[in-house]
């Protein structure tokens, strides 16, 4: 019975986990992207593209820019150096979601000067603290806070180095982005209320793509993430199903041993007038009841663990 319990618990956990993640992606897709539409390029935007953004802004769209590039970060006080991902953002970033900092509420300080807000891991690796000077290329910044939570989705780049947020207007001071430098440039658009991003961008998509600008709406992002999660869930689900089937083999041999132990009782029942159908029904019902009890216990166990994990997460 425990084989079935564990197998069912795993399948229920996998299914509810992926359902929750997909729902969470749906609920937070705008926050994950930071806008309704993202325009990305790894080259500077052409003047024609910037003109297009400009004309769209007259139609009620708001734009925020994020420029991401790698750099060595230096804290002169401690002589610490670290490879990092620099993100230069405009003052209206992000359109959706809240950035949580430490000290709390420090995000508005970023745009008030040559300030930086960094991943806490960077402070640790550079042995630095809030208030220290941070050098990026030829630019000098003051660390005003560390990041506790940023709603945007983690990309591969962020696995390579901790993040440093600086005001976009101070990027030229660093002199790190010169001809041929590697940088990812993203323009996030916020549409007027109740405007569907896919319908809005459809007539314009080819013009951007002709300028080698990638266009991604929040719906496409959500679908892509949901598809990835579903594929992962399907894979894990298959693994769980195989585990359950293997557990079923264990159950089958357990039931066989159970019935073999009951052979005397079966013989007595036949002596007392039980038909073969009655005897079969008695033991099928018992085996089915044990299987059902095992499955119910597994599902209940999975739900309890999920609730406990959720409560623990909320209390953090």
């Amino acid at each position, binding site marked *: 019975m425990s084989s079935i319990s564990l197998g069912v618990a795993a399948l229920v956990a996998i299914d509810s986990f992926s359902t929750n993640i997909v729902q969470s992606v749906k609920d937070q897709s705008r926050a994950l992207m930071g806008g309704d539409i993202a325009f990305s390029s790894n080259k500077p935007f052409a003047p024609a593209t910037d003109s297009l953004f400009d004309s769209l802004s007259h139609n009620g769209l708001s734009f925020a820019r994020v420029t991401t590039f790698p750099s060595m970060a230096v804290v002169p006080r401690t002589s610490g150096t670290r490879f990092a991902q620099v993100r230069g953002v405009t003052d209206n970033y992000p359109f959706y979601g809240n950035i949580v900092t430490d000290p709390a509420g420090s995000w508005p300080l970023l745009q008030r000067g040559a300030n930086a807000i960094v991943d806490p891991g960077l402070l640790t690796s550079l042995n630095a603290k809030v208030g220290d000077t941070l050098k990026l290329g030829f630019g000098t910044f003051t660390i005003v806070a560390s990041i506790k939570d940023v709603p945007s989705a983690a990309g591969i780049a962020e696995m390579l180095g901790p993040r440093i947020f600086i005001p976009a207007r101070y990027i030229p001071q660093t002199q790190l982005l010169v001809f041929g430098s590697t940088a990812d440039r993203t323009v996030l658009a916020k549409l007027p209320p109740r405007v569907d991003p896919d319908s809005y961008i459809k007539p314009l998509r080819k013009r951007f793509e002709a300028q080698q600008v990638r266009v991604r709406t929040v719906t496409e992002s959500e679908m892509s993430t949901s598809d990835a999660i579903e594929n992962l869930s399907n894979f894990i689900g298959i693994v769980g199903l195989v585990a359950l089937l293997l557990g079923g083999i264990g159950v089958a041999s357990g039931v066989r041993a159970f019935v073999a132990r009951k052979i*005397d*009782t079966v*013989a*007595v*029942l*036949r*002596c*007392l*007038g*039980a*038909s*073969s*159908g*009655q005897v079969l029904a008695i033991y099928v019902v018992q085996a089915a009841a044990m299987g059902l009890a095992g499955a119910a216990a597994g599902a209940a166990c999975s739900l309890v663990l999920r609730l406990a994990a959720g409560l623990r997460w909320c209390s953090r």
Partner: protein
Amino acid sequence: MLIAREVTKEYMSGEQKLAVLRDVTFTIPQGAFVAIVGPSGSGKTTLLGLLAGLDTPTHGTVLLDDADLGKLNENERARLRGEKVGFVFQTFQLIPTLTALENVQVPLELRGTSGATERARDLIDRVGLTGRSHHFPTQLSGGEQQRVAIARAFANSPRILFADEPTGNLDNATGHRIFELLRSLNSDGGSTIVLVTHDASLASQASRMIRLLDGAVVEDTGA
């Protein structure tokens, strides 16, 4: 009435045929108390199995109230056993996960008899175990378990009761008490009792004795 006509049972032992019973013939009228005796290996238990319809003879016929057991399939024989036959075994064979009362109810429940609980309670009272009806077999003595088995055997008011060494696992005194219980059920209820025993003193108290030796009837006091 129980009729055995030239009943023979053979088994294959390798390539050799082994005759466990050979041309056994007798008639047992309704209400008789018959003891089948013989040394170990004489075929007593095999004969009991054939008479009860638990097995079929290689040759010959067994008629139980005019029903030819050899012509019935297993489920039909099972139904006949439920209606007309009771069993008492040497090792009691109670279902260990059921109480004494529930064990007696089993044949009644298998037939779908209504009022099974009341009937079972009545039978438990008749064998003198009123206060032990909710005990499990492991909580009962050997004699008490055998009394529960006898109550179960009489649950469906069988026409015939087969008892295979019912006192074999009991001490003398308890064995005699069980035997007296069987005798009283025979005389009061009119059920035919066919008792297999190697105990000569018990066998001599039956109204008829059939002696087996090497699979054949060598003596029949009622013939």
